């Protein structure tokens, strides 16, 4: 297999449709072949849909592309142990976020895949934040990364982004109260510097934004106009509160001057390949991954502009067969290679979870638990 390091040298938003199709098809066919040879359960499933070595050879020509490769439903990682490396090479098992009582996905990582995930994320996020590390304000509580045995996707998300932080400060206490003193101290210490803020959408809204509004009425204000906020984990709860993306951004600007705000879409099953929102409000696929919208009626590829089920493909997964997955999210491709921000590749938006799908996403599962607790 071609080493991932070579692929990693690509600029994240540099390939047009034709170039990307070639690179993506080559890599995904290699990965499919790799998993056929190393994961018995994957092999059996693929064989049952008619995909074997011989069928894979048809991808050598121009005719078939990665759009023609099979996908696994993401839910399968909850039910089966899908792993393409020997047990003793598994060095980390990631679990998905799930509300209390839900079963969780298990993703098996070896060193190479874990490292490639991190490096890919750094490449993608640096396109938006710049390559230097900066002081980081984490809009969450410190305890979320402390339970090491059971490492949640929320903790993993925070740690993943911690790579970009130099000095770090948790903005919330373990009781999810805004730690006004610590935040003040942190901001004073880094006056004039660009600051990275990271958190999950619902937590930011509930425990940060609302508290800032309350404090502002008391005359206590914070200036975050030097900040860049990256947030993710689901909009469901805020949709219920009737807060749109535009309003979320606008309200943050109004209360603390924060205007550089980027949502992202990503999932633990394809960690590393995150989809960052550009300054025009569009989520972008990098060269390392892609989204394909499937018509729910027959799983055919939906044309741009038509909503459907999101399939995600990623060049990273070597230790588990998760390179082509059908999610339980609904979305729509807005365009390809022509976003006004200048980035190549597809840009899209998420409409939400499919009906009857489970509640997932770090922000949404927290919100569901939050509601249960009253």
């Amino acid at each position, binding site marked *: 297999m071609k080493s991932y390091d070579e692929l990693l040298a690509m600029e994240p938003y540099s390939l047009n449709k034709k170039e990307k199709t070639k690179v993506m098809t080559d890599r995904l066919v290699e990965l499919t072949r790799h998993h056929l040879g190393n994961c018995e359960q994957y092999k059996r499933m693929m064989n049952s849909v008619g995909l074997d070595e011989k069928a894979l050879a048809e991808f050598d020509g121009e005719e078939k592309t990665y759009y023609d490769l099979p996908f696994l439903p993401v839910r399968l990682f909850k039910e089966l142990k899908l792993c393409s490396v020997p047990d003793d090479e598994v*060095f*980390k098992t990631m679990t998905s976020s799930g509300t209390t009582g839900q079963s969780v996905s298990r993703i098996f990582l070896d*060193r190479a895949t874990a*490292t490639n995930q*991190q*490096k890919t994320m*750094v490449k993608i996020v*640096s396109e938006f934040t710049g*390559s230097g*590390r900066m002081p980081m304000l984490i809009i969450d509580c410190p305890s979320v*990364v*402390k339970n*090491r045995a059971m*490492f949640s996707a929320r903790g*993993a998300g925070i*740690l993943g982004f*911690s*790579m*970009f932080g*130099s000095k*770090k400060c948790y903005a919330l206490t373990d009781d999810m109260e805004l730690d006004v003193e610590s935040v003040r101290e942190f901001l004073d210490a880094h006056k004039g510097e660009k600051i990275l803020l990271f958190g999950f959408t619902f937590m930011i809204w509930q425990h940060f934004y609302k508290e800032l509004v309350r404090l502002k009425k008391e005359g206590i204000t914070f200036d975050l106009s030097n900040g860049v906020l990256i947030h993710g984990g689901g909009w469901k709860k805020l949709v219920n509160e009737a807060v749109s993306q535009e309003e979320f951004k606008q309200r943050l600007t109004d209360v603390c001057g924060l205007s550089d705000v980027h949502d992202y879409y990503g999932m633990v099953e394809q960690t590393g390949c995150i989809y960052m929102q550009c300054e025009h409000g569009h989520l972008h696929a990098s060269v390392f991954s892609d989204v394909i919208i499937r018509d729910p009626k027959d799983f055919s590829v939906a044309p741009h502009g038509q909503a459907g089920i999101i399939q995600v493909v990623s060049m990273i997964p070597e230790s588990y067969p998760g390179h082509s997955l059908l999610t339980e999210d609904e979305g729509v491709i807005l365009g390809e290679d022509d976003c006004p921000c200048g980035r190549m590749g597809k840009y899209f938006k998420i409409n939400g979870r499919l009906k009857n799908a489970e509640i997932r996403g770090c922000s949404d599962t927290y919100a569901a638990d939050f509601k249960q607790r009253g």
Partner: protein
Amino acid sequence: MSNKEKYNQAFMETLEVSENELAGLTYTGIPAWDSVGHMALMAAVEDAFDIMMETDDIIDFSSYEKGMEILSKKYDVEF
């Protein structure tokens, strides 16, 4: 304190290991050096030498020995 001593101290304090355990120590080789421990260790190393490492070096910092190699090659820390 020599650079080696500072380096060792960062490991011993953040990962709670003794000096004789350091040689050959790898990321995830002991429970304390997991991803959480790693970020604490990186912060301690940066403080010890007053440097700020690049993200790629933090990712590549996969063992006690590899860390010394990165520090000496890219951050002028002589051991």
